[in-house]
């Protein structure tokens, strides 16, 4: 048992924390809200090798573990950085898993292609609204029993849909995303797509965990600073206890995210279930923390001038990309309890 980050991970964390603090300032985050994507930030990430850091080294990637990606995702989430790293990483994972995708992996590493993942299989040629798709050049999707990399003919655009989380949402339909490259077929395709979805859950959970930590920090800083009735509002027991509750759940969420990454890296049989648990719990905890933090900001928390609203919207919006959580809970129950009776 060792619940500490490795020395390398601590160094990685410091490095990416600095990057996001500089490149994903609240001003930059606000400026990117209309499109849901900060192209300049993405270029910096490409220069640092971040989009392909999880790709095997022999394909030109960084060969990082999921635990390493989680370290980066937490820091991105902390700054609500306007780039869809979980989607891009999961899509790159699928491209790297098929010889037909290796060319695209190289293009992702070179910054020529930005990939995204359609989490839900296509139905009648449509994947519905897909986070990241409005900024993406390639969307990896499951179409029947084919895993495909879809792209648009030159000159066409993926119309961004305004959305709660400024998540570069766009409808993905094969009418617009008409160029396809088949990455895998049959059971292997379905399995690969499910596996990428599981990876996406862990990485999104990590981003939500970073978001949660900063939302808590914003709330604690505000209640220590703001006075009412002659005392800092941090003095009030109900303020303290609600923050203590979300901080406690937060420690649990942080552990669960790291455990899910560890389980994936070590091939633990609980990996898929832990990915769902981490996703569900990180989402819920981020939502409760952001809501508490916003509430304790009083009326100011509700104004667009304060940063906490950026966190409040994304805490709910990011996980909604996967759909209604009831399906995730049912799938988790099946994973946990529907094996040999």
């Amino acid at each position: 048992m060792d619940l500490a980050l490795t020395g390398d991970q601590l160094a990685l964390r410091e490095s990416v924390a600095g990057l996001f603090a500089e490149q994903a300032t609240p001003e930059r985050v606000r400026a990117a809200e209309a499109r849901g994507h900060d192209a300049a930030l993405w270029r910096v990430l490409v220069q640092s090798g971040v989009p392909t850091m999880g790709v095997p080294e022999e394909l030109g990637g960084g060969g990082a573990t999921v635990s390493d990606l989680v370290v980066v995702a937490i820091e991105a989430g902390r700054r609500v950085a306007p780039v869809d790293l979980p989607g891009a990483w999961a899509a790159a994972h699928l491209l790297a898993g098929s010889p037909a995708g290796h060319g695209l992996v190289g293009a992702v590493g070179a910054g020529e292609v930005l990939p995204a993942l359609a989490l839900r299989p296509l139905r009648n040629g449509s994947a519905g609204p897909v986070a990241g798709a409005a900024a993406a050049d390639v969307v990896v999707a499951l179409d029947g029993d084919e895993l495909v990399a879809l792209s648009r003919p030159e000159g066409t655009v993926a119309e961004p849909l305004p959305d709660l989380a400024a998540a570069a949402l766009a409808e993905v339909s094969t009418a617009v995303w008409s160029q396809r490259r088949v990455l895998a077929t049959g059971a292997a395709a379905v399995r690969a797509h499910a596996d990428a979805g599981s990876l996406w859950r862990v990485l999104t959970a990590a981003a939500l965990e970073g978001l949660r930590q900063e939302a808590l920090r914003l709330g604690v800083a505000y209640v220590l600073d703001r006075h009412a009735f002659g005392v800092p509002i941090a003095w009030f027991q109900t303020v303290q206890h609600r923050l203590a509750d979300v901080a406690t759940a937060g420690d649990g969420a942080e552990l669960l995210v790291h455990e899910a990454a560890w389980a994936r890296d070590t091939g633990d049989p609980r990996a898929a279930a832990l990915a769902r648990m981490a996703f569900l719990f990180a989402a819920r905890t981020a939502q409760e923390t952001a809501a508490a933090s916003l509430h304790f900001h009083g009326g100011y928390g509700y104004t667009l001038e304060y940063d906490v609203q950026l966190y409040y919207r994304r805490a709910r919006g990011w996980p909604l990309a996967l759909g209604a959580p009831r399906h995730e809970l049912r799938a988790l129950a099946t994973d946990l309890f529907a094996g040999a009776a």
Partner: protein
Amino acid sequence: MDFVESDSLAQFRTAAREWADEHVDPGWVELEHATGTHHNPDLHALLGRQGLLGAGWPAAYGGTDVDPGLALAVFQEIGARGLRMDGWVTTEMVARTILAVATEEARQAIVPAALRGEVVIVLGYTEPGSGSDVAAARMRAVRDGDEWVVNGSKMFTSTAHVATHVFLLARTNTEVAKHRGLTLFLARLDAPGVEVQPVHTLGGQRTNATFYSDVRVPDAMRIGDVDGGWGVMRVALVHERGTAPAPGGPTLVQRVAAWARHAPGDDGGVLFDDPAVQEELARLAVDDEVSRLLALKVRWVASTGGMPGIEGSMAKLWSSEAEQRRGAVLTDLLGEQALLRVEHGTGRGSGGAPLDGAVEWAYRKAPVSTIYGGTSEVQREIVAERRLGLPRSRPAG
């Protein structure tokens, strides 16, 4: 007991619907969303001209002979069509307070004009440095002959950019305990020295920060006694919380349920087939019924001549917390469909979002419900102390 609120309301429903069909411009809803201003000057002026604002008020102060039942039905119909009348809500509250505590001169100067729709009053209690602790107001008012000179700033002065007056809480005495040195004034928003700056919010509503620099207010527009502002605010508060009737029309939960009966579900059926969806909708419907009943009790206490202070706190506490649960539950219920946002005024996003983005919007505007008009913490304190008889625990400030 009898839970039928008004036997006469039903008879005015048809008339109210016809009135709205004739007068309410369907484009006003989009305008309200696009501007974030929960007040429509054209509608307000019309209601004033037709005597609907003055229904049920004393004739001596501009009351009209329009039946209050009709006015109520019209207001509910306006609400059912998605329009809010925040300007009238605050104007009515201050006008009632003026009738209760102000000089005859102020009554005659303000109330009839307010009922004609020519005066629109907004609240100026909260300051940048005071939220729940309203009595910490630092705005100063200093007497100068027959006038007062006001300096300071107010925050969350909603509707001020389309109003004529602001009801200002100002400090007139710094030598006494903070609750005892406050006075209320009705200042003109077009007076020299008043500045209004927009503040935009998560829920899309526009509010304002307002600044006051040597603004002069005649003593006749002092509302209530000098240093008696705290008592005046308590009078006003009773008129604020929950005595207004609920808007008519289907609730958000009813709209989502109706939508779910046609929206595609997971196995070829409709969303409403999912038993967990049914359970969530049923739970929210219970929440709504409790909100409705607690608000009904407020109006009942008021109708029997009582002061529904505790009941108002309970109604506000419950319905605002329920609003936040509703926003969370419904976004989860809709899944990725709840991400879709409609940007009013630009046309972006329209068409794709279920219920015109009502659920996404409900989630964004929910947080303010437990803050404005007294936070949940303040309401719980009132219930604990005044209903349950528990001791005061917070510092006097």
